[in-house]
């Protein structure tokens, strides 16, 4: 047993950030900061691993490692944290991607290192905080806490030619619009649950049982859509996705990884943690529009990704497509209809697994793009070709990640997408059918645009020789890059061949959640 385990998890990065700020200025301070940050970030990873793999009970549906203290008594706000099968993998993934991101960045970030590592660790606190919060007020605080560091990561260390400041403020404002409406909904729920004698509650668990606005569908809908908007923008669901390509493209590699790997998950996590248990009726009533938005995200995201010539932008749009599956899975799980609990649970399992997978796969892909960009100083797909032969290690890794992304059996993506469709065909058959198009387009974009353009074809010797004079050299992956990607590749394969490692955990919780809402 680790006392205050989750609090430690939340606080450790914050402490690290503070130490980063305090490291004295000097000639070597930059490298000191880098190594300190990387080493320090391993501690949460180890802790999270210990918690998940050793202490966590995958068969328990209730919250584990719970801590609850009264924080603001007059409005009954509690510092209430805990994890269950839904959040534990995501917490772990967060710590993992942070380590990888920091490790990678310690090689490629040369400017304003102190601020970079400070912001990154702060961001980690925000993200872990969201995943472990069981009090909506606390949830909101962490939710917003992540905004500022991400803003700076994009704006300062972004690629100058991609208008990083514009992208950063766009990301910030989009997210903020959603979240302030969520704030109103949070307060409204509190007021609704309070009575003349007892205060209301912000506790997510309590709210799930009290079901605010149970008798008032209009207000429930208002609150639902307010929260929905916040999460949908974060996911991002069509038509709220326009910030995503800009932000991803502009962000530095590690920023993109975290953005795709974790921040997008905050949205889908919110769907499962908040919207489904607290507003099941409203969700059910609105499943169709939500599923349609998911469908559009899937198909449209894939199509637009296919039309991109910018490698990074392509991956960004592919995230729209992939996150669409998550929403589809959630929608399928709660849809009205005769489907049995198993079908629904499979859909929800798929959605939750897809969250994890997308974090791993897309995180890897953004590393891959970043590695290429470091060498070529361009991301124009047309300018590459023949890299498969020229840089075989890179080619192999890209191939694996792409296949995982398009859902090749044996790799992680396949399992989750399959489960989503398996569930969706049971509850939303028509929509699921349309969504299959997304799979097709997704495969096309990966095979045609990425693999064909980058790995196959003829290596343009002349062009790159010319470029070499400007300090551009295409060489194969170095050791630290391989080390960065190795864990992710391992995970892709592991989940692809043996999904049970994580599915058990997920299944417990999706049965529990759906059990509450489906009679």
């Amino acid at each position, binding site marked *: 047993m680790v006392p205050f385990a989750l609090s430690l998890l939340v606080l450790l990065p914050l402490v690290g950030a503070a130490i980063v700020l305090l490291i004295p200025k000097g000639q070597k301070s930059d490298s000191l900061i880098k190594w300190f940050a990387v080493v320090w970030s391993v501690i949460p990873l180890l802790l999270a691993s210990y918690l998940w793999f050793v202490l966590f009970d995958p068969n328990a549906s209730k919250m584990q490692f719970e801590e609850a203290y009264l924080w*603001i*008594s*007059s*409005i009954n706000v509690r510092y209430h944290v805990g994890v269950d099968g839904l959040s534990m993998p995501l917490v772990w993934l967060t710590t993992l991607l942070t380590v990888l991101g920091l490790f990678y960045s310690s090689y490629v970030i040369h400017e304003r290192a102190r601020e970079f590592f400070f912001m990154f660790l702060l961001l980690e606190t925000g993200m872990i905080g969201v995943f472990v919060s069981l009090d909506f007020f606390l949830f*909101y*605080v962490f939710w*917003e*806490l992540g*905004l*500022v560091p991400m*803003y*700076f990561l994009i*704006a*300062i260390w972004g690629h100058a030619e991609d208008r*990083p*400041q514009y992208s950063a*403020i766009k990301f*910030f*404002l989009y997210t*903020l*619009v959603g979240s*302030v*409406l969520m*704030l*109103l909904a949070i*307060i*409204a729920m*509190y*007021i609704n649950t*309070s009575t*003349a*004698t007892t*205060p209301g509650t912000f506790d997510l668990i309590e709210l799930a049982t009290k079901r605010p606005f149970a008798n008032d569908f209009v207000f429930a809908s*208002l609150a639902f859509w307010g929260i929905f908007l916040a999460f949908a923008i974060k996911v991002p669901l069509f038509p709220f996705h326009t910030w995503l390509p800009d932000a991803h493209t502009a962000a530095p590699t590690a920023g993109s990884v975290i953005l795709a790997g974790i921040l997008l998950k905050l949205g889908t996590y919110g769907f499962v943690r908040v919207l489904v248990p607290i507003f099941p009726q409203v969700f059910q009533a609105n499943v169709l529009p939500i599923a349609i938005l998911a469908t559009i995200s899937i198909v449209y995201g894939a199509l637009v990704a296919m039309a991109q010539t910018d490698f990074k932008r392509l991956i960004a749009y592919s995230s729209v497509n992939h996150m669409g599956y998550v929403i589809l899975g959630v929608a399928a799980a709660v849809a009205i209809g005769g489907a049995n609990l198993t079908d629904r649970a499979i859909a929800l399992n798929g959605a939750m697994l897809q969250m994890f997978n997308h974090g791993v796969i897309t995180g890897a892909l953004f590393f891959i793009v970043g590695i290429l960009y470091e060498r070529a100083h361009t991301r124009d797909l047309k300018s590459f070709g023949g890299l498969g032969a020229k840089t075989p290690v890179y080619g192999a890794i890209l191939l694996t990640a792409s296949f995982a992304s398009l859902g090749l059996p044996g790799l992680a993506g396949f399992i989750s997408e399959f489960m989503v469709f398996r569930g969706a065909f049971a509850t939303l058959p028509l929509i699921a059918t349309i969504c299959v198009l997304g799979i097709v387009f997704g495969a096309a974009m990966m095979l045609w645009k990425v693999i064909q353009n980058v790995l196959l074809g003829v290596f343009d010797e002349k062009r790159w020789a010319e470029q070499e004079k400007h300090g551009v050299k295409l060489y194969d992956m170095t050791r630290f890059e391989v080390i960065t990607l190795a864990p992710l590749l391992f995970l892709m394969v592991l989940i692809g061949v043996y999904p049970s490692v994580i599915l058990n955990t997920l299944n417990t919780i999706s049965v529990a959640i759906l059990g509450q809402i489906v009679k």
Partner: protein
Amino acid sequence: MPDAQTLWLISPELVLAIFGLAILLFAIIWRERVYGALAWVALVGLALALAAAVNLWGAHARLFAGMYAVDMFALFFKIVAPIAGILVVLISMDYLRERTRYRGEFFVLLTFAILAMMMMASSANLLMIFLSIEFLSYMSYLLTGFLREDRKSNEAAIKYLLYGAITSAVMLYGLSLLYGISGSLNLGDVALTFSKSADTSVQTLALVATALVLAGLGFKISLVPFHQWAPDAYEGAPTPVTAFLSVGPKAVGFAVLLRFTLTTLPGLPEFANYWTPLLVIISIATMTLGNLVALRQTNVKRLLAYSSIAQAGYMLIGLVAVNLGGSSPFSGLNGVLIYLFAYLFTNLGAFVCVIAIENATGIVEIPEYAGLVKRAPLVAALFIVFFLSLAGIPPTAGFVGKFFVFGAALREGFLVLAAIGVLNSVISVFYYFGVVRAAFFLEPKDTSPIRVAPLVTLSLVVTAAMVLLIAVYPEPLFNLAAWSMAMLK
């Protein structure tokens, strides 16, 4: 001759009066030789006044035939006022040294301004309300125009004065009507007249009179359409004075507005039908206009001026949604109080940042903030904290304030108002981050480090710490607000 008990109850005011006079006397007798020390005298006086106010906490009395209320609501503002004063004194010292020969007189006026703020908070009588508002206004005009060689300062002051004088005359007309209907200057008697009267004509009179009074108070708290003075005055005034103007008059303006409305209007239940829509419209207009115009500003003082106009709009939401019944923590009133307290530190902090830069370099234009993070990292970093607080993003004090204000609006069913409010706070992020953008992302022309005076650094740290502390541990502030509401319930 007031008895000892009375003197005890007005001890904060007495302390300030005595210290103000003492500073004046020293300044006249010894002139330049003691100017450096006078700021410290003022600090001591303000600290003593603060201590006296804290010491009186819990008091509940009406003095001088009911015209002066010493209750916890007033004491809340009597705690706020000297805190603001102390911070303003701290940031004034270095600022004034280069700019005026009359530093002693400056602190006299400032001390009296704080005294006037305290009196406003306690006024429960039409005469006292008018007198104390004018007192504060005159001190503000003089402080605004204090740099007499500075053309902007003069111009700001005269605009401020003329605008203020017009609105206070309008307010005075409203007060005279209230006196006319009740035959008494005491707010309690006015309320009594209202509640006893079944006459619809009284309704009309009350509407006209309160609308006129709102003009005067709206001027103090810079509500649209009585806000036009604010940008000019803020831009032209000496920056410490701007900092003071942005929090002091606004806070006590709200104190008077709250006491006035919550005391007199409950006697007229149907009155809310006219009054609430009026306030809603003003609130929406204030925050929207303030934010939209702020988007176009390039001078940071002017930007903060429009921002503070918008902030007044948010605070007004609390008044719109005020409901002292029930046990809900969202009574509206506590929202305003908490918001004001948070806003005090936040806005002062933002101005301390501005002063830190202006003192060393004279820069107030946002484009010239380029690369500030390299020249003054602490200031640049704390700019973010204060701006986040102004925008209401956690974990800052501003968030706590907005939380309660919007909560009250939701409780009373003002959904659209709350929605417009939060969307406005999103707009505000855009221009706040315009400053951040300049400070962090643009390359500086001049990379020499900016030296920040120790006292300014101290104020910076204190305000920033308070902004974060209120967010992390807001409990004491809630209690403070709850207790101060107790008397108005």
